[in-house]
């Protein structure tokens, strides 16, 4: 029994060390593209600050990584989330979307913020500051509705 335990621990240790060397993709970029939501729409400062804080880690090309991001398998978990987030909505690509898609995205943004589905619990668990207070929620929702109405 002791032998088995030792073998298992060794395998586990090797695996854990081994996966640290698997190359990963980092979502970081210094360039603020001209197509970015904040550049195109130029919202008031408090709105841009809220969006950057609560949305941009997963919905843009630049993630402000937490310190533990380099430890596997956490890196994979984050990579997966960011990839999924960006494929649904990338604020950096905003003006590349057609008006039709902008309208759809805004509708989803509004619904999900309203229902507190965004930012998701798995994110706010650690990023407590990303949670919208009721008044912040109102500010963001009002702004998003204004943008949506300006499309029509």
């Amino acid at each position, binding site marked *: 029994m002791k032998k*088995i335990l030792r073998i298992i621990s060794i*395998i586990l240790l090797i695996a854990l060390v081994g996966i640290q060397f698997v190359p990963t993709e980092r979502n970081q970029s210094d360039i603020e593209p001209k197509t970015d939501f904040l550049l195109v729409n130029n919202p008031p400062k408090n709105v841009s600050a809220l969006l950057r804080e609560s949305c941009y880690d997963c919905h843009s090309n630049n993630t402000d990584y937490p310190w533990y991001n380099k430890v596997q398998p956490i890196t994979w*978990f984050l990579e997966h989330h960011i990839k999924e987030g960006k494929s649904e909505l990338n604020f950096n690509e905003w003006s590349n979307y*057609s008006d039709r898609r902008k309208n759809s995205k805004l509708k989803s943004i509004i619904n999900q913020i309203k229902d507190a589905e965004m930012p998701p619990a798995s994110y706010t668990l650690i990023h407590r500051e990303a949670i919208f207070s009721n008044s912040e929620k109102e500010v963001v929702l009002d702004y998003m509705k204004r943008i949506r109405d300006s499309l029509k």
Partner: protein
Amino acid sequence: MKKFKATLGILAIVLVTLTTMSCRDNKKEDSHDGMNSEMMDEGHHHDSAMNHDNMGTSTEMMDSHTQSSDAKQVVADYMTLKDALVADDNQKAQSAGKTLLNHLESFDVSKYSAQQQKELKDIVDDAKEHAEHISESPIAHQREHFKLLSKDITDMVAITGTETTLYQQFCPMYDGGSEWLSMNKEVKNPYYGSKMLNCGRVQKEIN
């Protein structure tokens, strides 16, 4: 002590399988993404080539009353989806969303004029996203996307024309007023299903 060892062993096995699994998952996604962007690239080349060839003649090629088989299929899929929502059938709506997504992906726009191609592409891109969400969501979320999808399909029909008469119907209660399309004059509400089956009215007949 024995118990402790056993749990530790199980823990180890779980961790190893988890990590190997997430690794495999990642690879799958990568190849998938690669394929997608390739397909998109192809689409672009195709598109620009098309534009050059068709600039002058394409407008004559379109007759608003000959609906292409692709367009017909998309409308048929949309109707299957609508009926599933009317019946409050989440599973069926999911599979209808999947079918719709497949047919949207193979939608051929080359028969249309350059301007129409651009609009159709926008419509199809947007509709694909809604179909995808519908194919994997609970029913409340499906209905949210169905509203936006209905607008896409209505605008699509405005370009492709329709051989069968469609009825644009309207429910004033859902989300500040929402439209949908039906093949029957009789109102059966996809936004509420059995809760308010006959709520709504015919707004327009599309021929």
